[in-house]
């Protein structure tokens, strides 16, 4: 790994001041994505060589997990996935989140990996991560996946760039209607996660709205809804310690057995976590059974545009939508 400088940031403000001052500085917490990125020497016209690491693990209260019946759950973005997995507040009130945070990677990585890092991690596209490929996302002028090996790329909403969002936790947060608290030089703002992620047409260089000198400080989840049910499913190549081929977070609010409200979010199919309003539209006001679940699954993938190698993801996405709806409804 190339030599890097290290700065410890005692507060969030110190962190963003350092980021604002140094264009090649990057915030680091667990480092399970960033260190690999640096070691692989991924650079481009729009992807600087990061050589200053601003350590934010030292921020007091950065990992705090607070819950109240009125305000819901507040999670410091530095909370590790293991912290969240074992937090009673999460287990008892947000089973969808508790399930989601137990899925990424391995126990070792979850011990150091933070929820903020999981949300903000860079995509796994092997052209993006290959130093030999100068692609759009790094400031180059070509996408190698669209006419190359794309079995792990997007089947929905890909345009110009076909990465898929790799996070397991992001779909759960969207399904729980969570918000992101962002700190920047001009102050704090709170943004629903539905506006947090950006697709390639909006800005191919980034996957979320964070600018270089902004940080995600807190995740806010509304109070749990009493009659809600949920389901989280993940499909991988080898069953464990793997990024999802496709995963799904489903949240239902049932009223006498029919669907009053729902949020169905998939990862691994689109450049941003994909909220399937098409599927939600099919089930609204109805009771979920096998036939309806299948209809919702088919409708969700009507606009799918498989690439040369990834049509199988359409099948997997449909299976997961069907199964998660039935599981959530039956739970």
């Amino acid at each position, binding site marked *: 790994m190339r030599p890097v400088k290290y700065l410890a940031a005692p507060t969030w403000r110190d962190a963003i001041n350092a980021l604002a001052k140094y264009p090649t500085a990057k915030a680091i917490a667990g480092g399970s994505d960033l260190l690999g990125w640096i070691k692989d020497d991924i650079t481009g016209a729009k992807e600087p060589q990061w050589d200053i690491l601003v350590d934010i693990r030292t921020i007091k209260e950065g990992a705090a997990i607070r819950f109240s019946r009125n305000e819901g759950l507040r999670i410091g973005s530095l909370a590790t996935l293991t912290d969240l997995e074992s937090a009673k507040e999460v287990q008892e009130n947000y089973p969808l989140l508790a399930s989601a945070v137990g899925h990424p990677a391995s126990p070792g990585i979850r011990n150091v990996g933070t929820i903020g890092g999981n949300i903000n991690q860079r995509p796994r596209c092997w052209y993006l991560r290959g130093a030999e490929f100068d692609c759009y996302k790094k400031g180059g002028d070509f*996408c190698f996946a669209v*006419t190359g090996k794309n079995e792990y790329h997007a089947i929905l909403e890909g*345009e110009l760039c076909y990465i898929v969002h790799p996070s397991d936790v992001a779909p759960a947060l969207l399904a729980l209607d969570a918000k992101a608290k962002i700190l920047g030089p001009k102050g704090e703002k709170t943004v629903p996660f539905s506006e947090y992620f950006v697709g390639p*047409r909006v800005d191919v260089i980034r996957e979320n709205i964070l600018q270089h000198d902004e940080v995600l400080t807190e995740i806010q989840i509304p109070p749990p809804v009493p009659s809600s049910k949920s389901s989280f499913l993940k499909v991988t190549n080898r069953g464990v310690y793997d990024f999802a081929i496709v995963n799904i977070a489903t949240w239902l609010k049932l009223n006498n057995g029919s669907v009053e409200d729902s949020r169905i979010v998939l990862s691994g199919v689109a450049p941003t976590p994909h909220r399937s309003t098409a599927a939600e539209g099919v089930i609204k006001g109805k009771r979920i059974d096998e036939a309806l679940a299948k209809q919702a699954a088919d409708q969700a993938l009507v606009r799918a545009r498989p*690439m040369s190698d990834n049509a199988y993801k359409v099948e997997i996405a449909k299976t997961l939508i069907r199964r998660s709806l039935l599981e959530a409804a039956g739970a």
Partner: protein
Amino acid sequence: MAEDQYSGGEQPTTGNQEVTRREFLRQMGAGAAAVTFFSLGVAGQARGPAFPPMAEATGVVFPDPSLCIGCLTCEVVCSRAHEEVGLSGVPRIRIYDDPSIKLHPEIIRNYPDRGAFFQEPCLQCPEAPCLPVCPVDALRVEPKTQARIIDESTCIACGRCERACPFTAVDENRATNREVLGQASRITFDPKKNVYVKCDLCYFREGGPACVERCPVNIRIRQGIVKSDILCLDLPASTSEVFQKLRQQQAAS
């Protein structure tokens, strides 16, 4: 003023005659209407607008749907190329789904499962009806490329050019990118900048039209990886022969 040059279809006041002509164009289908319209004879007709003489465009974006893989790269690079020079970012070429299209064997070979699509850019009509109808002369022939362009700083967003364009756009429900702009012809409205936009052959751009240069299928064809004599997005000069071919292809949508 400019208005004096008009008669019939494009009067500023809405009269039955105007509506009828517009409806006539719509109902006959753009292609047939265009043929009819042009066969009436163009310049100097008492009824039709007087066309200023205009040179043929040095190029027209000529799409081939049998090679299109619907990646939307053309839409996005069009958008970026124009935004970079301060113009509207609404894409001036649009892609639509169409499962009935017969795909080129090389596309089936290299990118099976991909689906079938067609592309709709402006045809750079040799005698473009959008030019004479503009009340503020925003629509011009660009000197270097002879592209029919809209000067966005002059455009007042009246929409006459959009209505004059004889080549309708397909129902946006079939648009591959699902963006709903209310597009009706090859000239599109940008609600953010409040101007109309159309393909201008990227006259400002060194490499020429961004879509033709960056289309991945074009790039693979040039590299010899996809074996084809034709390009997915080509750039021939807009002669009347080329225009007729384009018109036939684009009319059937």
